[in-house]
């Protein structure tokens, strides 16, 4: 068994014994309480609570139709909630902070006849930049992302990936303090996904809060410090990724030379045996008492590994099998 795993298992036992989250003293970029939105009598969002600290990368994770876009739209003030409150940088009128916010909607859109640099400048103008300043920054951004040669090309002349990049640059041109991205990885190839991940990390390092929705778990797992898992319009979990993973006990794989003995009584009741291998969830008491019992009972430990649950396992446990299946299907189709 790796030392790191043992250390983690010990830490987890400690974690379970104390309050789930460390108090976070950072001010909140986004705060939502009990957001409800119905369309035609159906609740698309049903009591969503969110806390996103400033500077965090935060994921809203759920399958298509779960209510992610509606939640983001309410946070941005594009639509108003039927119930509940949302505050962006402490302000409950997000439009009043338009210059501080950048938004990339799920359905990408640009004027096809506009030149790339003009499109970026126009998006900057929507957020308060002058057109001249927008053009200047637009050119700089395009150069920085190796698209300087396309600055004067019309959007309709760009490839889909280039157009998406132009729109993302337009989202960032006014240097917002909060960036909201709705399914930003959708439609991008692996290379561009990697670029986008680096861009998001760079924004966070500059102190920008980034919140994005996704139905691809590994993006959230790699990037986010916090996630909200959303299914059927509800958020059954919102908090740190670490805490979400810790909701599920680590899985232990034990290989012994002895097949039987008194030491088997020390194994958890859910332990499953396959030959000389035992599989079971790590007991809440941690790994050390178990090891002690095994050694004293002369089990003959050949190998022992402890695997932390991934965010996917956490999602399955929190949102349910059906939601997880749909999430996987959505990820494959996107």
């Amino acid at each position, binding site marked *: 068994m790796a030392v790191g795993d043992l250390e983690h298992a010990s830490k987890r036992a400690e974690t379970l014994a104390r309050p*789930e*989250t460390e108090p976070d003293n950072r*001010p909140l970029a986004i705060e939502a309480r009990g957001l409800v939105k119905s*369309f*035609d009598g*159906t609740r*698309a969002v049903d009591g969503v609570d969110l*806390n996103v600290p*400033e500077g965090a990368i935060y994921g809203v994770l759920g*399958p*298509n*139709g779960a*209510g*992610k*876009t*509606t*939640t*983001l*739209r309410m946070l941005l003030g*594009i*639509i*108003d909630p039927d119930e509940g409150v949302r505050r962006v*940088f402490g*302000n409950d009128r997000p*439009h*009043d*902070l*338009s*210059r*501080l*916010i950048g*938004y990339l*909607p799920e*359905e990408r*859109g640009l*004027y*096809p*006849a*506009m030149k790339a640099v003009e499109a970026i400048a*126009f*998006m900057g*103008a*929507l*957020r*308060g930049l002058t057109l001249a300043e927008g053009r200047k920054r637009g050119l700089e951004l395009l150069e920085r992302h190796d698209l300087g040669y396309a600055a004067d090309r019309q959007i309709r002349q760009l490839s889909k990936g280039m157009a998406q990049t132009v729109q993302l640059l337009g989202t960032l041109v006014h240097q917002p303090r909060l960036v909201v991205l709705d399914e930003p990885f959708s439609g991008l190839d692996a290379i561009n996904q990697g670029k986008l991940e680096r861009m998001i990390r760079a924004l966070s390092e500059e102190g920008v809060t980034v919140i994005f929705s996704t139905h691809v778990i590994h993006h959230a797992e790699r990037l986010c410090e916090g996630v909200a*898992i959303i*299914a*059927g319009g*509800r958020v*059954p*979990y*919102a*908090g740190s990724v670490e805490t979400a993973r810790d*909701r599920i006990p680590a899985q232990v794989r034990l290989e012994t030379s002895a097949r039987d003995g008194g030491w088997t009584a020390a194994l958890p009741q859910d332990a499953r045996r396959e030959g000389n291998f035992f599989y079971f969830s790590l007991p809440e008491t941690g790994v050390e008492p178990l090891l002690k019992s095994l050694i004293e009972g002369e089990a003959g430990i050949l190998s022992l590994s402890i695997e932390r649950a991934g965010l996917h396992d956490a999602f399955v446990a*929190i*949102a*349910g099998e*059906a*939601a997880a299946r*749909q999430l996987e299907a959505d990820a494959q189709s996107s």
Partner: protein
Amino acid sequence: MTNQASADVKARLSFLEAAWVIARRDFVAVLFSRAFLFFLVGPLFPVLVGGLAGAIGKTNSQQAVSVEIGIAMTAQDNAAMIAAATTLRPKLRGATPMLTEIDEARGNPDFDARAFMDARRGNYAAIVTGNLDAPKLVGTQRQVDRWSGPIELVAATAAGASPSRFPEAQSEVVTANAASERYSRVRTAQAAQMVLFLLTILLGGMVLSNLAEEKGNKIIEILAAALPMDAVFMGKLFAMLGVSFVGITVWGSLGWGFWAIAEDAIVTVTQTNYRDLPGPAVGWPLFVALGITYFSMAYLLLGSLFLTIGAMASSVREVQTMSMPVTMLQIMVFFLSAANIGATGTPLELTSVVFPLSSPFAMMARAALEETLWTHAVAIAWQGVAVIALVKGGSMLFRKRVMKSGGAGREKKSLFSRRAARVDRSAAEAVAEPAE
């Protein structure tokens, strides 16, 4: 940035700044598009074709509807009648008929004019028989009513019963009397209403597809996230209004050019001498200023309705279907205003003044007919309030009805998955603790 810091900066565009950003983009984009060039040229073709058709139609109708009166008297009387008509024609112009001797009646004492007319022979409006002392006119009632007076005068002149030389009358021209001025201003009011209506309908169509196209381009959500929707609506309306003024300027300049080149032809074809168009009650300069204002108001009112429809529709085709009732409504309110020209103060006229969509047309007519000015100030303020109310209502409707494509948009498609999610929810809640 901390909450305090965010409060210290002006963190959004004002309503006017936001509307300006949208108006500037739309104005430039529409003005320099190929579609607008075609739009500008488009109405010139119907005018050209209409002019040609009018000219041809006029010739045809002149050929088809004869004003010739056949004469079937004795050869001597026939000659005297034709000579008398020739003498009278310069004095009476169109009131004197063209007289033609009927070949079939020449030397035929049994010629039956009634049978000749019943047999639809010849191309005569009527036939004169009898003699100079007792001419008899045979024709339809309408033709008899029209020509009996002139024929009597021609016969009297031929018989030497009227003076052979007409005394020259002295003349003193007055521009108008009270009755004729009122009547003439009604013509001005009608013309102004018609121009206002045609321009509004013609140019209002541009607004229709504007938002539907933006929805198609998926731009609308970016705009809605950055700016208040009513500012977006207002910016689009004023951009289209600006484009309309460009169109009017171009068409007006071309019209002025045509008028300068071919005034006579235009007067002939339209049978209207526009130089004689009577002056409106408020005077031409104010009338033109009010015309521009009422056009703007009519355009903004109709445009805000069209914009709302465009925002609700998902395709240009859907827009066209949905806009039909509004166009019909606009035609009805135009008729309401047109039917009440000159009926100032009657309940129907007041209704057309108060109802926002017909108000610009009704007030345009009032500007032609009435000198009172304060009513225009009140009407323009009222129409402005109506524009703001329509824009606010449209943007609210947009936010409420349109921006729901997230969960709700897919709900019907993923009904199964939502059911499954609901089933799982209870299980999930058992695992998950309350959200942080």
